[in-house]
């Protein structure tokens, strides 16, 4: 199972909030340049899974391994430094800071001061550099959040509901960006937009009530109709 070529291995992962168990025995793998999607109803445990991988929640059991390093018990900032970065769904940028300062913080954390990839993916950010991030639109915020996360060439990006509430044109732009990003980093995307998921994913995990109920890993099964069964 553990081939060593995987960027991220999760095995037997269980998570509780107090005495209420919310994730049961989760196992998943992410290979290089893969886009892996998690689909499922609200409350299925998708966000909890990402937060747990990123270190914001401590699992009660199980292992999370990224390139031979165990992530369990590390603080979130160490996990981010190891190249596993979480992009939350709340679309909260640091609104009191300018776009430039937001990116500077990403650079400060990773010591990567080359912003060219960011401005290539999101040319629009170039014109907004000195604007306070609080004045950005929802789409621009999402661009900024992805932009500051991809500094330092992360190995795995954990993207939580990236297209929620965004205009269709931005969604299709993001779709292309994810494809481009996957050439350098692997992605785990939690997403409700099934057509988007099916268009870009190499593998889909369907979740329900804190368990992975299906793994769709081939062309034939990665279809909207198949995914819908699990929602």
């Amino acid at each position: 199972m553990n081939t060593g070529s995987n960027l991220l291995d999760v095995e037997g992962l269980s998570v509780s909030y107090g005495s209420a168990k919310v994730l049961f025995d989760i196992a998943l793998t992410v290979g290089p340049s893969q886009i892996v999607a998690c689909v499922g109803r609200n409350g299925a445990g998708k966000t909890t899974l990402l937060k747990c991988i990123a270190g914001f929640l401590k699992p009660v059991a199980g292992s999370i391994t990224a390139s031979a390093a165990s992530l369990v018990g590390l603080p979130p900032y160490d996990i981010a430094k190891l190249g596993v970065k979480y992009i939350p769904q709340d679309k909260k940028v640091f609104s009191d800071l300018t776009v430039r300062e937001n990116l500077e913080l990403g650079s400060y954390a990773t010591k990567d001061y080359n912003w060219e990839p960011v401005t290539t993916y999101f040319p629009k950010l170039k014109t907004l550099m000195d604007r306070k991030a609080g004045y950005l639109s929802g789409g621009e915020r999402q661009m900024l959040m992805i932009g500051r996360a991809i500094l330092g060439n992360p190995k795995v990006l954990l993207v939580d509901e990236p297209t929620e509430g965004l205009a269709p044109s931005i969604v299709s732009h993001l779709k292309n960006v994810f494809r481009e990003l996957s050439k350098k980093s692997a992605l785990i995307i939690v997403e409700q937009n099934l057509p988007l998921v099916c268009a870009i994913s190499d593998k889909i995990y369907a979740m329900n009530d804190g368990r992975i109920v299906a793994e769709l890993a081939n062309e034939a099964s990665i279809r909207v109709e198949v995914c819908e069964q699990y929602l």
Partner: protein
Amino acid sequence: MRKAFDWWWGIALAFSLLAAMRAFLPLPFVNEILIFSIYAIGCSFLLGRVGFISFGQPAYLAIGAYGTAFYLFYFGTNPYIGILAGLASGFIAALIVGPLFVRLRSDYFALVNLALAVIVFFLMQKVLAPITKGDNGLWFLTNMTSTPVLDITRPSQFFVFAFIVGLAIWAFYKYLDDTLFGACCLATKINEDKLQFLGYSNFSIRLAAFVIANTTTALAGSLYAVYIGAVSPEITSPARAADPVVVILLGGAGTLYGPIVGSIAYTGMKDVISKLIGNWEMIIGPLLVIIMLAGEKGIWGTLEPWLKTLLFRNKSVVPQKNSSIEGN
């Protein structure tokens, strides 16, 4: 049936313990424990049930004490009426500041209360010095006349009175815990939004809890005043702001008997330590830090589940506080 038994059983045990202490320990010590536990239960209720921590309890204690003192020094001689005067002034003070304070977020609430305690201290020490006699305090021990039936100007009969008052207060708080009001209080602590959806007003629940708790504290203040026969601004000195907080944490916050256990432990320690070294803060400060770092369950919080298993061995034991919240 078992519930009714539980009800009285706990209170009866706690108070027979106090009565037993009367036989073995010096009277002033037991009296102090009684007053202190009444002082602490208001604070304990606010913290454990409503989720408000108040560093300003000495303010309400002083208001009750000075209410009593003013009556006994300037107007009358009957200590019972003095206690009523203290109770009334505490109730009125809580009604005045309450509507303003309970609107605040819990962090602001804690800070504003602390500021209130310091202000009451200044008020009594300097601003109202012509009436309060400043740092000298008001002395009225000889002003009080003996009362028929129960002469509370005498320490031994004061004990009986304080004992009865304490018993009544505990019965009252136990009753509150079991009523819908008690449940609402707990609900404002855990999830105020949801409570509002159910059609309850957070504001009025919190105000009621605030007034009840601080009137109790004022009552403790007036008991103090009558017992000592004097009141000085020292009673609300900022250095003592943490006293009730330490007591309830020592005992276990939010548990019904925590304040009693905490008062016994605190008064005992204070007695012993101040005999050994004069420097009380040096012990109580680190102790407070250690209690907090060790898990803030306190003495009673640790003992209670253990006692319950011991006494109701065959019954399933519902753990107090936290776990019962998360369980459903």
